[in-house]
Structures are given as structure tokens and as C-alpha cells.
């Protein structure tokens, strides 16, 4: 009887402990603990090893056993296309910024994005959070809130304190993620957030008076201070008048988050960077 009572107290204590832990973070005051840091670093090492092992096996198979030459050429072409897509986005961002500033202020401003290439080594351990782990961290100049992009568009941002050689990326489709955005054609501004189903995005705070159409491209506006302006977020999939004064806009993201292998982290400081990977050059 006493044993059972003691077990009951133990269960209650653990549950109350969890509630205290959760409520301490509910106000947004969570900054990462030593234990979290250690767990993240330890598992990141193992995840990196697993990814490397898988990469080595895949590399051997595809390059030396099956279609060696074709695979090499395909890899090179894929990288070239990725580079060109990125260049196109950078040029678009540059052009938009320059045009807007020239028109309004008569000034010129150049975008000089400093990026570091990173490989995805793991996904989130729970299905309720949309995050990835990449193999670049503080030693590579990565900081919290650095934007992460892919050749197709915006991926997300670094969340939490990065480990020495690994960081967590909150994907734009996470239900807690958001980015300042505008419709490229009409320049209608709003905020893009992750949706409940974790596959599409929502654009909020766009007035019912704005002429937004299905197929319009949505790009970052730069107003959030995280994502540089002019980078592709996705395409409008549906538009409907909302219950209040705003439109209900659903966006199909440009990036296929489930197939991400390599990304670029836009490094936000002036510290010297390690050599860029091929994808970021």
C-alpha cells in the first residue's frame, strides 16, 4: 500500500514537473538549457555520422557501380541549375530593392548576401514541430534567426542557439513560423504563416480590396528583419474573402520541404566565413 502511494506521489511529481517546465516556456522565455544543448550536440554527431555513411554508400552505388558518367554529369547539371536559380533569386532581390529605393528615395542599395552551404542531417523527432537539423553551426558563423534558403526559395530560419557544428532550422511551414511577405504582382503586403496541416502556407493581413489572383507569386518583403526581400515563398493556390476585412489566401510553398538535402544559411554578421560549398558559390 505504502509502495503504491509512493509511486502515486512520484507520478504526480513528474507530471507537475512537466507542467512547470512547459509553463516556463509558454511566455516565450525559453532560451535553451545546458541539457538541451548537450542532447542536441550528441545526437547531431550521430545524425551527421549516419548521414555521412548513407552519403558514402549512395555515392559508391551511384558513381562507381551504376551509370557512373551519367550520374556525374547529372550531378554537375543539377548543381548548375541550383546555382542559376539562386542567382536568379538574388538578381530579383537586387532588382526589386534597387527599383523600390530608386523610385522612392533616389538611392541605390546593393544586396550582399553572405551564405554558407549546409547539408540536412536530420528532421524533427516529433511530427508536431517542423524543423530540420543542418550540419553547420556556430563555428561556421551561423547565428539564431539567420535565414535559410534553397535554390527554389525560402526554407526557414535558425532557431535556438546553434551547436558548434549543427543548427536547428524552423521550416516556414511550421505552425509557429511567420515571414513578412508581399504579392509580387500587386505589392500587397501581409504575413505568411505556416498552416495547421503543415503542407501549405497562409497569407494574412491582406486587405479584401487587394486584387490577388491564383497563380500570383509571393515573395519576402524584408519587413521581419530575418528574411531578405524579394526571395520566393510560393504561389497563391486559392483566394477568398475572409470573415473580417482580410483575404484568406492559401499558398503552395516553392520549396519541397520533404526533399531538402542541401540549403544555404544567410549569415548575418561580419565574421570570417569558412570556404563556401559548391552549392553556395
Amino acid at each position, binding site marked *: 500500500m505504502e509502495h503504491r502511494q509512493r*509511486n502515486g506521489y*512520484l*507520478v504526480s511529481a*513528474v*507530471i507537475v514537473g*512537466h*507542467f512547470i*517546465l*512547459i*509553463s516556463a*516556456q*509558454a511566455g516565450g522565455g*525559453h532560451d535553451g*538549457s545546458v*541539457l*538541451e544543448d548537450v*542532447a*542536441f550536440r550528441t*545526437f547531431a554527431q*550521430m*545524425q551527421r555520422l*549516419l*548521414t555521412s555513411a*548513407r552519403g558514402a554508400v549512395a555515392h559508391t552505388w551511384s558513381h562507381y557501380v551504376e551509370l557512373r558518367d551519367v550520374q556525374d554529369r547529372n550531378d554537375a547539371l543539377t548543381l548548375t541549375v541550383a546555382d542559376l536559380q539562386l542567382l536568379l533569386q538574388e538578381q530579383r532581390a537586387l532588382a526589386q530593392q534597387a527599383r523600390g529605393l530608386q523610385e522612392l528615395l533616389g538611392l541605390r542599395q546593393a544586396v550582399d548576401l553572405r551564405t554558407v552551404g549546409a547539408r540536412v*542531417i*536530420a*528532421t*524533427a*523527432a*516529433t*511530427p*508536431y*514541430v517542423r*524543423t530540420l*537539423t543542418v550540419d553547420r553551426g556556430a563555428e561556421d558563423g551561423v547565428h539564431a534567426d539567420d535565414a535559410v534558403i534553397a535554390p527554389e526559395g525560402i526554407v526557414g530560419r535558425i*532557431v*535556438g542557439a546553434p551547436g558548434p557544428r549543427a543548427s*536547428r532550422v*524552423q521550416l516556414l511551414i511550421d*505552425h*509557429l513560423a511567420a515571414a513578412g511577405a508581399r504579392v509580387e504582382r500587386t505589392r500587397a503586403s501581409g504575413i505568411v504563416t505556416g498552416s*495547421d*496541416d*503543415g503542407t501549405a502556407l497562409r497569407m494574412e493581413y491582406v486587405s479584401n480590396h487587394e486584387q490577388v489572383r491564383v497563380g500570383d507569386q509571393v515573395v519576402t518583403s524584408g519587413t521581419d528583419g530575418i528574411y531578405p526581400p524579394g526571395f520566393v515563398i510560393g504561389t497563391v493556390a486559392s483566394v477568398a474573402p475572409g470573415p473580417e476585412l482580410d483575404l484568406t489566401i492559401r499558398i503552395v510553398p516553392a520549396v519541397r520541404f*520533404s*526533399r531538402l538535402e542541401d540549403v544555404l544559411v544567410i549569415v548575418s554578421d561580419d565574421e570570417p566565413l569558412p570556404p563556401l560549398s559548391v552549392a553556395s558559390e
Partner: protein
Amino acid sequence: MTTIGIALALAAALLAQTAIVRMVASEGLPTDLVLIVVIFAALSRGRLAGLWTGTAGGLLQDMLSGGIIGISGLAKSITGVLVGIAGSRFIIETIWQHVVVIVLASTFHTVSVLGVYALVGAVPAATATFVLSRAAAEGVLGISALTLARAVPVAVQRLSRRRAARRSWAVSHHG
């Protein structure tokens, strides 16, 4: 399941969930491998093992995912305790009895996680289809794991018996 066995199973489940599954299925699996370990630990070792396995596994999941730390830990701890209680009150032996336990535990766990998210004002995907599809997938996965765990020792035993029979045949014919 020994304590070391549970710890190794938890680590393997976490690594599989985060790094291995995406190698074979880019869209990921709609299952929670850590929950499966918690359920089997609770069934084999009782409610306290369920509590600690749920706490450790859930907290590690939260820490690795970058979300609110404690949500998975809380849901898995309670689920582990409840499965442990069920395991001590009822005889759970057959495959179908395990299916019922896993599906109920998975449903309870998903609803708990969503409930705690709702309490802190951050509700992720929450449809009945989502809850039921997860429960079904985890049921299938749990049963596959159980079948495998039961079949492997039997197969090994059969193999060693066959070898012994061959050896004795060879000895009787050549010796």
C-alpha cells in the same frame, strides 16, 4: 526488457525517427517510434518503467525538435503510466490485444499532445483523421515490431536445432 535495453531502444528509435526514416521515405512516416518503445517498456516492466521511459524519450524528442520542451515528455509519461497500469490489470498476450493497447495509447498520446499545445495557445494540425491515421500506423508498426521480436528467437532456435540434427547425422554416418 532491461534498463540498458530500453535506453538503447530509445536511442535507436530517436535516431531512426530523425535521421534514418528520411533516407528511405522522404515524406517521413506518420508514426512515433519513441512511443512504441514507451508502450513496450511499460507492458514489459510496469508503470514506473513506462513513466521514466516516457519522460526520458519525450524530453529528448522535445530537445531535438526545437519545440516547447516538456510537451512530448508529459504526454509520453502519462501514456507510459496508463499502459503500465493496463498491463498489470489485464492479460495482454495476443497480437490483437497488443493492437488494441497500441491504438488506444497512440490516440491518447496524440490527443494529450494537442491538448497541451492548445493550453499554451499553439495548436498544430488537429483533425480526427490525423489522430486516427497515426493510431493505425503506430498499431501496424507496433505489431510488426512485436511479430519480429517473437519470430527472430524462434527462427534462431530452429536454425540451431537443424544444425545440431545435421551434426548428429554426420557423426552417426561417418563416425
